[in-house]
């Protein structure tokens, strides 16, 4: 008896979901004649409005941009907290590798410039001579002119 009632309850829900054929519906109504309380429930349930439109449709992804990025941020923080020292070091190294390289280059360049200015060399002059061997220098001409003047 109780089992039959449970079966009928499930059939009523199938009917409310529109999952029964007209023949199955007719059979259900006939069976419910022996259970007046269930028949009354059946009519009440079938009268209920469609609930699917009650809360509107799901909003677009773009409306939840901030919430989604907050979740992703929380996940990233969690990921970061759970990494080993080596992994963290690698992440930091990758993140700041370019900046660190530029900084190291800049610092070493300063030392190089300082050392060059302390011990004057004519390396720049030699290089220009190597690249431009036939190019006559006006300064050289001027020096020769001065030497000639002094010997006269």
């Amino acid at each position, binding site marked *: 008896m109780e089992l039959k009632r449970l079966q009928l*309850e499930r059939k009523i829900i199938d009917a409310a979901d529109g999952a029964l054929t007209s023949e199955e519906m007719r059979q259900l109504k006939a069976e419910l004649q022996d259970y007046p309380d269930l028949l009354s429930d059946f009519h009440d349930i079938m009268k209920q409005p469609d609930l699917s439109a009650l809360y509107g449709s*799901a909003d677009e992804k773009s409306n939840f941009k901030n919430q989604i990025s907050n979740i992703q941020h929380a996940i990233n923080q969690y990921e970061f907290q759970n990494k080993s020292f080596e992994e963290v070091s690698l992440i930091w190294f990758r993140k700041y590798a370019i900046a660190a390289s530029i900084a190291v280059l800049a610092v070493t360049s300063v030392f190089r410039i300082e050392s060059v200015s302390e011990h004057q060399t004519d390396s720049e002059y030699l290089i220009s001579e190597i690249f431009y061997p036939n190019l006559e220098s006006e300064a050289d001409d001027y020096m020769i002119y001065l030497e000639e003047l002094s010997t006269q």
Partner: protein
Amino acid sequence: MDKDIRKKFQQEIPNLYPRLHRALSAYLSGSALDPEDILQEAFLKAYKNIGRFQGNSTLYTWLYSIARNICIDEFRKQKKESGRSSVPVEEHRIESDEFKHRDERDDILELRKAISELPELLRTIVIMKSVDGLSYPEIAEVTGINEQTVKNRMFRARKELAQLMKNYSM
């Protein structure tokens, strides 16, 4: 393997969030809980426990059950503090422009209020089926009860809903 699942999970967040937000807003209608706070906690909890996701259910229903469990814990905390009281109709906000006529708007408000007054399990089943469109096997996964019992609970839910609507003389 675990890394792949984590990556996939992160990629799926933007797709899962809007639907879960809608379902949770319906579930929490009239409650003081904020669906956005619950969802943030649920996503993070899911990510931390991604190894437990077997792939038998969908990611959506798995997240749904996590979010629901968080809500149940919060309801328990609230109940301890003050006891759950009925919620005034005014707290069931309508943000959609779909329901412009006053009578229709009032009907919607009262229906939402009626749903929010259902016991937790019945409310979950009504929302999952009627509002979110989940199948009975999916609802069984989320609630942890078998499919036949879900249908019987659905019958009880709709019967109680009919009674509540009669009380509001709808």
